[in-house]
C-alpha cells in the first residue's frame, strides 16, 4: 500500500521554538569557556616548565583586561554549569537502595553541593599554601 504524502517541517531555527531549547544551548555553550580555560591552564603549565621568564609572561598576560574579562566570563559559565549539572545529576543515578531506601533527589543534590564546598575549600587551602 502506498503511503500518502506527508509534510516534514524540518529543524531550521529550532532553538527559536522554545526557551527550553535556548537554555539547553546555553548550558552546552558553557563548555566553550570551560574548554578555553583548560587550554589556558595547559599553556600555563608549559610556561611553568619552560622557566621563570616564560611563566612570568603567562602571569602578566593573565592580568590584561582581555584575559581578565574572559576569566570572569568563564567563572560565570562555570557557575551556570555547576548549577545545571548538579540539578540534573539525580537523573543519571541508577535505581539503587541505600539502607533499603532510594535516596531522594534533594538528598543527592544537597550531598553533591556539600562535596563541592568541601573540595573547593581544600583546593583553595592548597593553592593558597595553607595546606598541608
Amino acid at each position, binding site marked *: 500500500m502506498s503511503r500518502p504524502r506527508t509534510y516534514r517541517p524540518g*529543524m*531550521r531555527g529550532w532553538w527559536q521554538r522554545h526557551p527550553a531549547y535556548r537554555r539547553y*544551548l546555553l548550558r*552546552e*555553550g558553557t*563548555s*566553550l569557556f*570551560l*574548554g*578555553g*580555560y*583548560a*587550554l589556558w*591552564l*595547559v599553556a*600555563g*603549565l*608549559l610556561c*611553568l*616548565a619552560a622557566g*621563570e621568564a616564560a*611563566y*612570568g609572561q603567562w*602571569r602578566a598576560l*593573565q*592580568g590584561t583586561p582581555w*584575559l*581578565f574579562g574572559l*576569566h*570572569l566570563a*568563564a*567563572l560565570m559559565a*562555570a*557557575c551556570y*554549569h*555547576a548549577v545545571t*549539572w*548538579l540539578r540534573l*545529576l539525580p537523573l*543519571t543515578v541508577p535505581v539503587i537502595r541505600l539502607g533499603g531506601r532510594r535516596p531522594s533527589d534533594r538528598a543527592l543534590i544537597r550531598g*553533591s553541593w556539600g*562535596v*563541592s564546598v568541601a*573540595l*573547593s575549600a581544600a*583546593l*583553595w587551602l*592548597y*593553592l*593558597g*599554601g595553607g595546606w598541608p
Partner: protein
Amino acid sequence: MRRSHEPLLWLLFGAGGLLAAWLGPALILFTGILVPIAAERGVTLLGYEAARGLLQGPAGLAAVAVVTLLLFHAAHRIHHTLHDLGLPAGRRTRLGCYGAAVAGGALAAAAVLAL
C-alpha cells in the same frame, strides 16, 4: 542495531563535567581572578617557585587529570552542539574535538613531568 562507542566518551565527559561542577568555579576564581587582583596589590599568589612546589608528586598528576578531563568534557559538548546546530559534525569534527583534548592532556602531562 549498531552498538555505540559513546559510553567511553560519555564516561570521560561525565567525569570532566562533575569535576567542573565541583571544582570549576573555585579554580577559575582563584587562578583567573584572585591571582591577578593580588598581583595588582603587590601580593604574589602562585609565584614561580610556589607553583612548581604545588605541582610536585601526586598533585601534579591530579592537575593533569583535571585539565584533561575538563578538555574532554568540553570536546564532547562542543562536538554534540555542532551537530545540534545543524553544522557538519562527523568524523573530522570528532577527530578535531577529541584529538585536541588528547593533545592538550599530553602537553599538560609533558609539562608537569618536566618540572
